[in-house]
């Protein structure tokens, strides 16, 4: 049961009666009037037990977009339903009108439009819908909460999408006729064409030239159908917020851009998220749209406060592909985590694959390092220097072992990782 502001106003109007006829009679009388009116209204209200609900939701939505989330209310009772309806979405779903007023004639259905503006990636949930059915006087209402769980998967925003056209163009430039600029831009034979000035003389195909009596060069294109395996670390280091987003979200952006780029370059993309176990996996063998599969797999990921188990990695990689692949490890270069976890398993990986370690660099450290106004500042600068030196040492060690390292601030990481992929592809190292 619930009451409306009208009943309160009616009660306030009773003050007039109390002033005109002071005494217990008017108080009790007016209370009786209120109770009778509320009871009458309750008795005449459409039963919320006979209301059927249907939520109309899209399969998934992107962050930063408005999502229509309507409720269809079917009134199975014999009376008109005057209802206030609330869908109990979690606050970060950003419901614009949590309470919706609706009138449904007997036996009919009405749609209560609603809009969600998600503030967070992941699975957003609602547990129940509450229906408050007012009587014809609008004084009192019968209320019922119907358990009706619902989930909306909010995909990562993929803001680095804007880099994709430029990177794809560069990928095409090294494709096909790229023998002018780059010797060794791929090792796969593509076609023969006439020599133009500036072509590398080493790429002249003498046999064909003899046949045509015209100088002919061979062109190569980068290898296609190579495997790119993106491994995303979701352990405690991914929970760190750098600038305004957690390391995990930056890693997701970078992985999405790299995945789309590699698909554009004709490679097969596999994705694995792991900490102490595999948390998400996207297989290159499946047919559906890669972007939606990647985004769908990444959406519910959250950083866990546990240490990553890098010894899982060789097993995961070999289960994906036994061929030589590009393994892109999106993790952090924190000295402790890398030295104890990654370094022991790296030689085994490097023996077979090309390994790129991508990490988000904290620009706040550079800021702290150069601020030296007071003693506290200088101690903080010293600590920042120590962190940067440790990172540099880890980076140097990884590089000396043969891995590639991309260590960039949040907004730079996705395009820089894409550049690294293009460079590796151009130099035929895939």
């Amino acid at each position: 049961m619930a009451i409306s502001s009208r009943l309160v106003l009616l009660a306030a109007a009773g003050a007039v009666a109390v002033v005109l006829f002071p005494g217990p009679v008017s108080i009790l009388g007016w209370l009786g009037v209120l109770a009778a009116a509320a009871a009458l209204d309750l008795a005449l209200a459409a039963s919320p037990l006979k209301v059927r609900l249907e939520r109309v939701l899209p399969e998934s939505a992107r962050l930063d977009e408005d999502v229509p989330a309507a409720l269809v209310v079917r009134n199975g009772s014999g009376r008109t339903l005057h209802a206030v309806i609330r869908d109990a979405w979690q606050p970060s779903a950003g419901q614009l009108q949590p309470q919706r007023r609706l009138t449904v004639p007997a036996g009919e259905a009405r749609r209560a439009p609603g809009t969600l503006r998600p503030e967070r990636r992941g699975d957003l949930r609602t547990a129940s819908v509450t229906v408050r059915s007012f009587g014809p006087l609008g004084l009192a209402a019968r209320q019922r909460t119907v358990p009706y769980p619902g989930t909306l998967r909010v995909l990562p925003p993929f803001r680095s999408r804007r880099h994709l056209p430029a990177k794809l163009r560069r990928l095409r430039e090294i494709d096909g006729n790229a023998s002018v600029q780059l010797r060794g831009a791929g090792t796969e034979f593509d076609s023969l064409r006439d020599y133009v000035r500036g072509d590398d003389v080493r790429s002249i195909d003498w046999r064909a030239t003899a046949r045509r009596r015209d100088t002919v060069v061979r062109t190569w294109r980068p290898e296609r159908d190579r495997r790119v395996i993106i491994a995303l670390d979701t352990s405690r280091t991914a929970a760190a917020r750098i600038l305004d987003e957690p390391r995990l979200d930056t890693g997701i952006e970078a992985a999405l851009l790299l995945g789309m780029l590699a698909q554009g370059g004709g490679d097969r993309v596999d994705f694995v998220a792991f900490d102490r176990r595999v948390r998400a996996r996207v297989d290159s063998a499946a047919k559906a749209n890669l972007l939606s599969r990647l985004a769908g797999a990444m959406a519910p990921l959250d950083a866990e406060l546990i240490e990553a188990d890098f010894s899982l990695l060789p097993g995961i990689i070999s289960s994906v592909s036994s061929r030589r692949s590009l393994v892109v490890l999106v993790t952090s270069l924190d000295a402790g985590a890398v030295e104890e976890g990654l370094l022991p398993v790296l030689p085994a990986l490097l023996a077979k694959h090309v390994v790129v370690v991508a990490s988000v660099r904290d620009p706040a450290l550079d800021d702290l390092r150069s601020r030296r106004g007071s003693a506290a500042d200088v101690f903080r600068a010293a600590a920042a220097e120590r962190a940067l030196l440790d990172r540099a040492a880890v980076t140097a060690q990884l590089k000396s072992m043969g891995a590639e390292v991309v260590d960039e601030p949040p907004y730079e990481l996705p395009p820089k990782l894409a550049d690294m992929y293009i460079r590796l592809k151009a130099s035929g190292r895939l």
Partner: protein
Amino acid sequence: MSGAAVETAAGHAVGGNVSGTSAGPSRLRRRFRAWRLWIILALVLAGGVVLSLLTSTSADRTPLSAGNPSPNGAQALVRVLGERGVDVVQAPDFDSALRALDAQDATLLFFDPNEYLGAGQLAELRAAAGKAVLVEPTFAQLRGLAPGISQAGLVPEETVETGEVTGPRCADPAAEAAGTVSAGGLAYRGPVTCFPVTGGAGEPAGLFAAEEDGSAAVLGYSGLLANGTITENGNAALALRSLGSAGTLVWYLPVPSDIPAGDAPANPFSLLPDWVDPLLVWVVVVAAIAAFWRGRRLGPLAMEPMPVVVRASETADGRARLYQDSRALDRAAANLRAGTMVRLAARLRLGPGSTSAAVVEAAARSTGRPASEIDALLNRHAPANDSDLVTWSQELLYLEEEITES
């Protein structure tokens, strides 16, 4: 309420069917949760009723009341008087007191510390009463009931501290029978003054005073009659003799309703119109209804699962505080030096494996400053205190900037 099945669009029945198969206790608990508010309200109401029943014993707590058995009451005296054959009439108000006095020649016990009665009423009492015994009377009461007796102020403190006043030093038989009484209250002066408490100079004033003709007597101390102290000294003798002289005793303690209309002080609340109190009650009722209106939630609260997010530079901050708290100047200096060295080596294109001597030499060449000065700055200096560390680290930064700009 949840007995009927509510079907959601997903096609599964929620309510009766589902909960029917689930365990009984959980259903009971759910039912209990739904009715919890009402159960709590009922318990609170029941508790309030029980509490008010327990506390509302209609015990008489008025001082010197004939029915009051507590130390400040006078039930003991009244009982003893009754046993001695005195007819004690307890008058609840002025009219009944007058009636009781009119009926027979009676003694009046009068105790009115709040001065409820006016001069006219006092005169009526005097006319009706054969003998009036006043307890701690005020000036107006004396004038109305015992004009021959006057007030003489408080009993001096040193007398109160001794606790008793000996020797009636007067010819009143009741006082002579008592001999000694407890000290306290007020002193009075009259044609017969007993138990004097003020000094010898001038007319003495005492705890007991009486008119010459015995039409009025004054007891200066209510403790002479009270249950708590009546057994001390000769209190009981004085009380019994002065009150038990006639066959009937009218025990009259004026109450607020005896205040004569007109000359009572106006109660400011009585000036308000009579609808104010009901209106206040109604405002409380409306407030309760409004509280229910605002307080009723539209369904349960929604939970927000919060992901773990840590500020990335927290480790650096923590380490900085450790340095500062342990005053690790050398370690901080070593970090700053190493950072500068690495960046200078990169800037001067010396490669990662170069020695510090090579860096110093290259820096000196780049800046034009003497190598010894740069060597002292980079390698030889060990900051002694915080301020030294600050200036030294700033010099390192200047050197870096100088080389970066060159």
